[in-house]
């Protein structure tokens, strides 16, 4: 098997106060090219922190995180981040920039030629199902939640990164829009075959989008399984999630 594109080795993460329990402890995890990893867990389980260790928004207390076999601490942090698409909830769009300016920001910072930026803009906006010309000059405040989230995904894809990190990307959407965007994302992801790591507390979303589900509880990885295996898990924390969503092995997701 090829080398993992992202690897966590015995990761500990603790905020400076020594008395508090660690946010993450003993986390080891390998992510391979083309996988879509769902980091599933309750609020405070450490899933968002784990995600932020990948693009260096948080730094490990001990252990190491490797991206493309190189320790995050050894990476030029700007280079590392420009090579990783980052999607957060809809609030992450820059309110003072138009859709086009938001989407083209990283290519622009990377000094792409104007022609290349233009064609890439059209490409990614079409990929997320928005009309490039209609949205070009609109501001985030003029968009619906679903449109904003699509723009967020387009922006993350703009510089054609190998890795995509998504922090509860569809969490703020209404259920109908969320289902719609999830389906679109699934189709998009199949086409592009990026390596995706996303955080969610929605087990249905994890089962639908993930090729592998990593369950976190109190800063530890307690289960790792493909969706079809995950629904059969007997671990109490996994069952809590499945039961809460009324999903069982028989019912099919």
């Amino acid at each position, binding site marked *: 098997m090829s080398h993992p594109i992202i690897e966590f080795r015995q990761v500990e993460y603790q905020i400076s106060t020594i008395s508090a329990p660690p946010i993450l402890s003993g986390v080891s995890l390998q992510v391979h090219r083309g996988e879509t990893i769902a980091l599933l867990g309750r609020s405070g389980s450490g899933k968002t922190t784990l995600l*932020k260790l990948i*693009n260096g*928004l948080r730094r490990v207390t001990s252990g190491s995180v490797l991206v493309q076999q190189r320790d995050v601490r050894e990476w030029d*942090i*700007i*280079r*590392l*981040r*420009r*090579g*990783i698409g*980052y999607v*957060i*909830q809809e*609030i*992450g*769009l*820059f*309110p*003072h920039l138009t859709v086009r300016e938001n989407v083209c*920001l*990283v290519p622009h*910072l990377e000094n792409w030629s104007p022609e290349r930026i233009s064609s890439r803009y059209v490409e990614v906006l079409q990929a997320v199902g928005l009309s490039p010309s209609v949205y070009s000059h609109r*501001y*985030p*405040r003029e968009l619906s939640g679903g449109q904003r989230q699509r723009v967020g995904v387009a*922006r993350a894809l703009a510089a054609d990164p190998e890795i995509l*990190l998504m922090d509860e990307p569809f969490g703020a959407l209404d259920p109908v829009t969320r289902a719609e965007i999830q389906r679109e994302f699934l189709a998009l992801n199949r086409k592009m075959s990026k390596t995706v790591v996303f955080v969610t507390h929605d087990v249905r979303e994890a089962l639908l989008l993930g090729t592998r589900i990593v369950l976190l509880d109190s800063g530890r990885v307690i289960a790792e399984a493909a969706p079809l295996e995950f629904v059969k898990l007997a671990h109490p924390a996994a069952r809590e999630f499945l039961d809460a969503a009324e999903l069982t092995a028989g019912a099919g997701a």
Partner: protein
Amino acid sequence: MNAWQFMTSHRVEVLAATREHLILVLISMAFATAIGVPLGLIIVGRPRLRAAALALASIFQTIPSLALFGFLIPLPFIGGIGAHTAIVALVLYALLPILRNTYVGLTSVDPAILEAAEGMGMTEQQILFRVRLPLASSFIMAGIRTAAVITIGIATIAAAIGAGGLGTFIFRGVAMVSDAVILAGAIPAAILALLADFLLGLLERRLRVS
């Protein structure tokens, strides 16, 4: 003679004083903005310098304006009698609102937006100039607006040290015990202040994001 009659019969003088006044204010505001905004950018990431700069700017603000003009007269280079001394004092008064609003605007940007910027691989400088500064622009404009109104008012006192402007009429009117002459200085100054407040307010609203 009422104020209206005085102003119409002395309109050339009143207009010239208004022009003088406006020039004093514009030059002072240009300096205060050119110092205040960059200083605000510098102190964002430097807590110690920030405390010192804001404290110093606040101290100037507490000195009564007539006293500050008086203090400046004996100083070499920046002091003396005339418009340049007045401009130094006006800049010191205008600095605090501009500096403080720049700082507040830059630090009140939604942390989620800043983290998105960082996560996308923007450098600190890029975040400052492409995210924080544009999002702070309406705050900064609000500071400039406050400073402009203050400066237009205080500039009337500049006449006391021979800087000219609308204050000339006010001081002359006080000496002559003539309301009409005082109002010939006070009314145009009030109109200038209201006008500046209104126009800069429009600009401020245009800059506001969502």
